């Protein structure tokens, strides 16, 4: 009993200090976001972040999932010293980003949503000068750049200018550049936006590769598959709030163990009675009228599907969409709407 108590104490102390775990698997906290808010006081008052709290441990890949306008990019902008919070704090490797922005930047690597490669420099020079900005000597910068070109399969394109690169290649150069100075944490803002599927896969592989280097990664995305397959843990963000936090499996188990049935019906008369009937079934968690018919969230038990189709038959079933338990269903469960709506 006393041992456990001591362990708890030690746990708390070391958690704060961010040191190595004496009683378990506590890893140093690399990103600590506390009660972060950002309000844009323009003509329309926009609350981009409404008090979010997040903690990232060393070496994890953390996904911020949410629709456009959820506040993902704002969270990244503040964490990377590019925007000032209205209130709250962000610490990167223990350094307050508002109080010591240039200190914090040493620990930060960023891949922004847009291609911000230096158009006046070649691919090699983009990496080389980035290293020089971070205080590398000529020899050290050169060695690191060549190493990165090899790691990201860019050696052949060493002397090419960014304007001649495809979107996928440019993205790879941006990731290489962002980690060139060996940051503690890498921020990837919508890394696969605008990439073709093949480049997206290559980008995923590159991000997976970072795991080996022990870099902590925070990525934002509105692609479910990306969040699901890349993240160790993820937070679902909407309207500037964290709605849920956990590993993809935890989230699916907690919120999304149900299937979503989208019934598109020919006749929309008296849909309410169908909704009432469906709601009375034990499998059904929710049933709502949609513009095209009815949406049910339910456990897909044996016999449920035929029963449902039969019940809806008199409205004329035009189409039936089934979304299996996934982050998508988690999101719909939490927000009542599709991620892409």
């Amino acid at each position, binding site marked *: 009993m006393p041992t456990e108590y001591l362990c708890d104490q030690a746990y708390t102390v070391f958690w704060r200090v961010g040191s190595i775990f004496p009683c378990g698997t506590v890893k140093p906290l690399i990103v600590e976001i506390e009660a972060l808010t950002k309000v844009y006081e323009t003509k329309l008052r926009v609350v981009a972040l409404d008090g979010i709290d997040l903690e990232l441990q060393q070496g994890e890949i953390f996904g911020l999932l949410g629709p456009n306008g959820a506040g993902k990019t704002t969270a990244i*902008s503040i964490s*990377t*010293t*590019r*925007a*000032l919070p209205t209130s709250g704090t962000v610490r990167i*490797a*223990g*350094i307050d980003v508002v109080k*010591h*922005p*240039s*200190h914090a*930047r*040493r*620990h*930060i690597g*960023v891949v*922004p949503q*847009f*291609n*911000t*490669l*230096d*158009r*006046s*420099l070649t691919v090699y*020079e*983009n990496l080389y*000068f*980035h290293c*020089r*900005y*971070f*205080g590398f000597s000529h020899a050290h910068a050169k060695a690191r750049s060549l*190493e990165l070109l090899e790691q990201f399969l860019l050696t052949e394109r060493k002397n090419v200018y960014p304007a001649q690169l495809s979107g996928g290649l440019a993205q790879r150069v941006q990731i290489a*550049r962002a980690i060139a100075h*060996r940051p*503690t944490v890498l921020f990837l803002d919508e890394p696969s936006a605008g990439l073709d599927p093949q480049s997206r896969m290559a980008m995923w592989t590159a991000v997976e590769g970072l795991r*080996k*280097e*022990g870099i902590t990664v925070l990525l934002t995305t509105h692609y479910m598959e990306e969040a699901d397959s890349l993240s160790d843990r993820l937070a679902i963000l909407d309207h500037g709030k964290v709605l849920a936090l956990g590993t993809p499996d935890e989230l699916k188990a907690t919120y999304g163990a149900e299937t979503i049935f989208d019934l598109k019906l020919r006749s929309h008369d008296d849909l309410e009675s169908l909704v009432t009937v469906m709601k009375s079934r034990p499998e059904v968690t929710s049933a709502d009228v949609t513009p095209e018919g009815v949406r049910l969230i339910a456990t897909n038990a044996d016999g449920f599907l035929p029963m449902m189709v039969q019940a809806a038959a008199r409205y004329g079933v035009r189409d039936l969409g089934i979304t299996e338990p996934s982050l998508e269903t988690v999101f719909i469960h939490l927000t009542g709407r599709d991620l892409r709506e």
Partner: protein
Amino acid sequence: MSNQSPVAPHSLGAGVSLKAFFGLFLRDTRVLMREMLPFLLRVGMQPLLFLFVFTFILPRMGGGNPMAMAGGANFGVIILPGLMAVAIMFSGIAAVALPLSAEFGITREIDDRVMCPLPLWAVALEKVCFSAIQSMVAALLVIPMAYYIPAVPVRAQIHDWPLFAVVLVLASLLAGSLGLVIGSTVNPKQIGLVFSILVVPITFLGCVYYPWAQLDKIRWLQVGVLFNPIVYMSEGLRAAVTPQIAHMPWWAILTALVFFTALMGRLGLRGFLKRVVS
């Protein structure tokens, strides 16, 4: 690579920032070296043509040409410092305002440099300093041109070297700061317009083609141009390079140059920070 050296928090000293500043400077040097010929053409073309037309062609046309008469035999001497001021000014704008405006507006290339481990004001300062070096090269190029091109060679008469150095440096920093103001406030689409409505007027009214003292016949203009920073660049160089021509007292020139550099620097930095941090 797993051999990350653990960086103790708050260990960032001035050394890191200085290295970053040096890195930015190296980057700009690399880009400039690659574009040496366009750079020389850009800074050299205007004074070259100006000297060629006004001090070579027109004087040869003799008394018959009213333009040549208007300038007078001394015209070359009057415009040598003026052309240096113009070279400084255009260099400052071409080196800061044009790239910055594009980097902010279209390409966002500035992002990588803004994420360097140094204070943001230092990123802006680097731009201004690097542009100042280009401005100085541009101004110095005018001196040999003024010697070789005109029908009657115009010799720079620099007796007071410290004054010349101080004026050259201050005028170049002022031009860079003005470039920072324009580059961080004007969007790339309107940059051409800014040239027409701002850069060209302040150049023409900047005592480039006439000494300030001779404006005494148009008193309102003589007072009005005192708000134009280019006047002090031209007059300062006039005091340093062609002291035989009437010019403002050196203390007034230096005070005004320092004042305008500080003012433009402040405005430029404010605009820069506004664009970089939201």
